């Protein structure tokens, strides 16, 4: 298992263009879209367009690095820590990490912020 970390400079995402390789023991069975022809075909060729379909718009200047799982090595994306999470506990941080953020088609969720004046 190789963990690839998202940073200010690079956004990682994972695909299997030849079949549907996926880190089963950690993430379970892959979702339908991961196995779809569209994702398998396009993630390597136009990852930014695919990300946009997931609602992910990357900051200008960030590199996209796509990992095509062509062997038995499995890749897991470590999402970038959202701003404003400095005081959060490990459990609170873990709750921001979704399945899709570990495939790289989502970012970590933003922490819930208290309403002003609440």
């Amino acid at each position: 298992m190789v963990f690839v970390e998202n940073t200010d400079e690079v956004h990682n995402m994972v695909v299997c263009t030849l079949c549907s390789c996926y880190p089963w023991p950690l993430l379970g069975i892959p979702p339908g879209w991961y196995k779809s022809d569209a994702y398998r075909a396009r993630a390597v060729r136009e990852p930014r367009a695919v990300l946009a379909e997931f609602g992910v718009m990357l900051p200008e200047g960030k590199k996209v690095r796509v990992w095509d799982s062509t062997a038995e090595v499995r890749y897991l994306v470590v999402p970038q820590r959202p701003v404003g999470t400095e005081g959060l506990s490990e459990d609170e941080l873990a709750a921001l990490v979704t399945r899709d953020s570990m495939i790289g088609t989502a970012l970590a969720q933003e922490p819930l912020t208290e309403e002003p004046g609440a």
Partner: protein
Amino acid sequence: MSRIHDMGGRLGTGPVDPKDGYDFGEAKDWHKRALALNVACGFLGQWNIDASRHARELLDPQDYTAFSYYEKWMGGLADLMVDRGVVTVEELASGQAAGVSPVSFRAAKPDTVEAVLMNGSPYTRDAAAPVFAVGAKVKTRRPARNVAVPGGHTRLPAYAAGAVGEIVLQHGAHVFPDSNAHFQGEAAEPLYAVRFTAQELWGAEADPRDEVVLDLWESYLEPVA
């Protein structure tokens, strides 16, 4: 095989649907059984993961396109079971066993399934040391093909054939699918993560910042001076 499965870079597939989640809704309960049947039959030890991938790749391209995911799995499984002598075509057609299978003693047992699945199967082997260092420039084989078995299984996608990239990780020696899928031995060889610029793979239309990394076996690669 048709290489219909080798989809990386194919155009015209339409958008990805992020709401297309898990297949295990009530209406698709058979998907659970299809997955379980595939996993359970793997316990019989009559093939390996590379052979099972190759069996799905051998489906008629019109079937591959028309079949749903688990239909492909069942199609590949049926072919494998007949090819490997686990069942006969007649048994498959009738749904009735002609007798006790000689491999029935290998059947998955409820108390061992979870442990086996969680442990997985290691594919790393002790074999020759890697020829290429991290940072080395390499060029991939072209065309993407199985050199020993015409039309056989390979894990070099067509879109990355003949491309120049850079070694970024050494993964140690891994079972070689081009051999293992055809029951010609594990033939383990060094495996690498190789980074290609998007423009090397797709031309000037690709974003100059972007990269694609593939895991590639040593014999797919040649040195670039």
